[in-house]
């Protein structure tokens, strides 16, 4: 078994409280299903939009990351899967795709 990070990118504000509730419920259902099957190591954390970016040799501090809405990382989870193919397959049920967002599936480097 290998561990993967799901990076959730892209964000769309639901238009009404009812839609927000439906969206929230879909995410919870999707992750709970994966978790029940033992594939969630950590549900992870949601990230607030905005923040600071520190970069370069001069350690320049700038407001950001002001990427386009579709590229902003909104949160992450830690997933356990057999291989990258399975990790990708598990991601297919993520509700983020309905909003035009993406899931970046990244294997965590193993020690040794």
């Amino acid at each position, binding site marked *: 078994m290998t561990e993967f990070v799901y990076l959730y990118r892209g964000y769309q504000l*639901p238009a009404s*409280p*009812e839609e*927000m*509730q439906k969206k*929230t419920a879909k*995410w919870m259902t999707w992750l709970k299903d994966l978790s029940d099957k033992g594939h969630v190591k950590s549900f992870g954390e*949601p990230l607030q939009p905005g923040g600071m970016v520190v970069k370069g040799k001069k350690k320049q501090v700038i407001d950001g990351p002001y990427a386009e809405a579709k590229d902003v990382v909104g949160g992450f989870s830690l997933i356990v899967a057999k291989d990258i193919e399975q990790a990708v397959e598990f991601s297919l049920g993520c509700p983020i795709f309905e909003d035009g967002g993406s899931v970046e599936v990244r294997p965590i480097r193993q020690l040794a």
Partner: protein
Amino acid sequence: MEIEEHFFRHEFGRIVATLTRLFGVSNLALAEDVTQDAFCRAMETWKLRGLPANPSAWLMATAKNRALDILRRERTVRTFEPELTRFLESEWTLVPTVEEAFSTYAVKDSQLRMIFSCCHPRLAEEAQIALVLYILCGFSVKEIAQAFVSSHAAIEKRITRAKSILAESTKLFDLADADFPARLSSVQQALYLLFNEGYHGASSEAVVRTELCQEAMRLMNLLLEQFTLATPKTHALAALMYLNAARLPTRLDGGGNLVSFFEQDRSLWDRRLLAEGQAFLDLSASGTELTEYHIEAAIASVHTSAARGEDTDWKQIVSLYDVLMAIHPSPVVALNRAIAITQLDGPERGLEAINTIHDLHRLSSYPFYPATLGEIELRRGNHPVAKAHFSTALSLARNPMERNFLRRRIDACEEFPE
């Protein structure tokens, strides 16, 4: 753990009302933004971490903290609720004032004040209902447009205008105000119309219609909890809602089609709602005021006490319509009375009753006027005439549900050879 049905929507109304009480009604837009923001935080957090132990308290706490931030940061640049200004100015009183506003009692009180504020005399009834749905029930413009089978642009315009009129008020309506009795009457009327929009309304989606009825009843229950608002007239309105809501599942079939009176499956009626409705009807009998809600509830009660459609006490229903015509006459009431007379004394007498409706012309675009003539002619055996009436009705139909129903009535006429 599952989120309770319509939880976000209901919390929206509670939080917006509470924040508006603190910020003042002129800052309604700010209250909406803060609420929206609290919901975004909830959604982003809960979708990964799951529901907290008490989702409602979580949302309230989030909104409360944001409110405190804003009140501290903007008290020098904004005018908040005038009555509270002096409490909001000092750190010593700010926190207790905000805590108090978020207490269970105060949240309910703010919701009531908001309902009363939305029923502003300068707003037309349809604007009042749209505003109630938007602010207190957390419906979006799109959802309201769907429920009213109206255009997005029309509803948006209606709500924007209504909000600006609301925001001109100096404060949320005070239930101790001198014009309280008049305003209570408007509130009852708005809830009545909201309920009717669900019960008789245009949407062909059974779910949408049920939700409108449920929302009217949820707000109704807020009124019932408050001693000064739970008048006999309020109880009569509650009775009317509960007795009709009990029958709602049988008025529409699975496909959202209207089911005609004698074909409704009475075994599907909600017995609990019927019992509650009957209890409210009993409570409404105190006092001396006899309102149209009392009579309509009594009519509903006669219908619900008949085991089968054939057992309906039409005599009693006709006499109740006589009273309704005396206290609250309208051509639609007169038409319904004629329908009851048709059931009691036959189609000839029903037709006579229709012909004596004195402002009949006001029904000229009402599809159920020719449809009633169609039913009467069908009973008289004049199938081609009946069909012509149903065709007229079809041309006046306002939505797909009415069209489907009337097409089926036309088909029924064609089952007989001419």
